[in-house]
């Protein structure tokens, strides 16, 4: 990895941090476009695995950026086969990209919170808050769609149904998300999807 690419990646994630209205899931489509389609630093499989694994692990969703960084660092240094150097590189990229994704928005929150408290009923703030809702909804649905496509490139109808059932169960029941993941894993393994 050249230092220009390293710098570009970190600057891009700094920008994403400030664009992440609606949280980490809203920037999933952009990360997919940037890392998989444009720069080809990750394969579809690596991307979908990163997001999937970040869903079964506890912690804020933004940690998926650390998983992306880990994969990019590891692959750029030759993968697991390359040993210690690649693993170090994975850690460095995980920490670097996570910091880039979190620090700009955190600084903004830190310094804006007082101003927001004072102006939360102002027309501009209210317009921003509810004006972004449709877009955030659209972005989260696209994040879900891109994940589905990444895990199911051949559009297997059984996986499509599994995806739909998972969505309905989340909306209609209070079933713990870990059970859904476990169910998906068992069905996937048993049916050989």
């Amino acid at each position: 990895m050249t230092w220009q690419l390293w710098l570009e990646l970190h600057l891009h994630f700094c920008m994403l941090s400030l664009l992440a209205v609606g949280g980490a899931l809203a920037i999933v489509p952009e990360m997919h476009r940037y890392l998989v389609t444009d720069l080809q630093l990750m394969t579809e499989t690596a991307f979908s695995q990163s997001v999937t694994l970040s869903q079964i692990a506890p912690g804020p969703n933004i940690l998926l950026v650390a998983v992306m960084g880990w994969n990019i660092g590891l692959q750029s240094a030759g993968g697991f086969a390359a040993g210690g150097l690649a693993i170090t590189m994975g850690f460095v990229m995980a920490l670097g990209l996570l910091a880039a994704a979190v620090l700009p928005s955190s600084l903004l929150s830190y310094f804006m919170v007082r101003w927001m408290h004072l102006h939360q009923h102002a027309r501009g703030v209210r317009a921003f808050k509810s004006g972004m809702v449709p877009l955030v909804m659209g972005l989260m649905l696209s994040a879900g769609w891109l994940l589905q496509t990444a895990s199911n490139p051949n559009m297997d109808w059984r996986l499509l149904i599994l995806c739909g059932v998972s969505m309905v169960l989340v909306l209609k029941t209070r079933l713990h998300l870990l059970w859904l993941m476990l169910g998906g894993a068992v069905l996937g393994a048993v049916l050989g999807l």
Partner: protein
Amino acid sequence: MSFESLAVSKAPRSRTDLFLSFTWLGLQGFGGVLAVVQREIVDRKQWMSLSEFAEEWALAQTLPGPNVVNLSVMFGGKHFGPSGAFAALSGLLLFPGLLMLAIVFTFQTFAHLPLVASALHGMGVAAAGMVMAAGWRFMPTMRQHPLGFPLALVFAVLGFVLAALVHWPLAGVIALVGSVSCGLTWWRLVPKEAS
């Protein structure tokens, strides 16, 4: 920084207390963090009342960045300034992050086995369904949107098409859809204030 309007019944004792509390919070947050944050900070620690929490959470959601991260920064900063914000933020991310990398590491070691690959496909689409559900949860808000339901839906569909199907850069999508949507909402909000 101190916010008089947010006087709380109890307060974190130290930065270490903040760090450990947010670590514990992060380690419990599977999928939905909101419920965990509420139970820990409001019910157990009593660092905020429920209404204070609702207000802080609304602010954390309005600002860009992950909601719970924003909340940790706002809360830590309120009690101990910059170092408090850093303590809460690093608590939320450090150990949960290491645990996540350990899980990823374990899975990747076995990812070449067909059975594990199939299981990951199944989990992948189940996770995709959860993310779609998170998006779908905005439906009630959309129905009461100042723009009216149909127009709000148009912007949502436009966002979906541009991001998922046309693969536009996010900056472009926000610049186009976000600005038009916020602009129209701003314009629609006038009559309400006048009445």
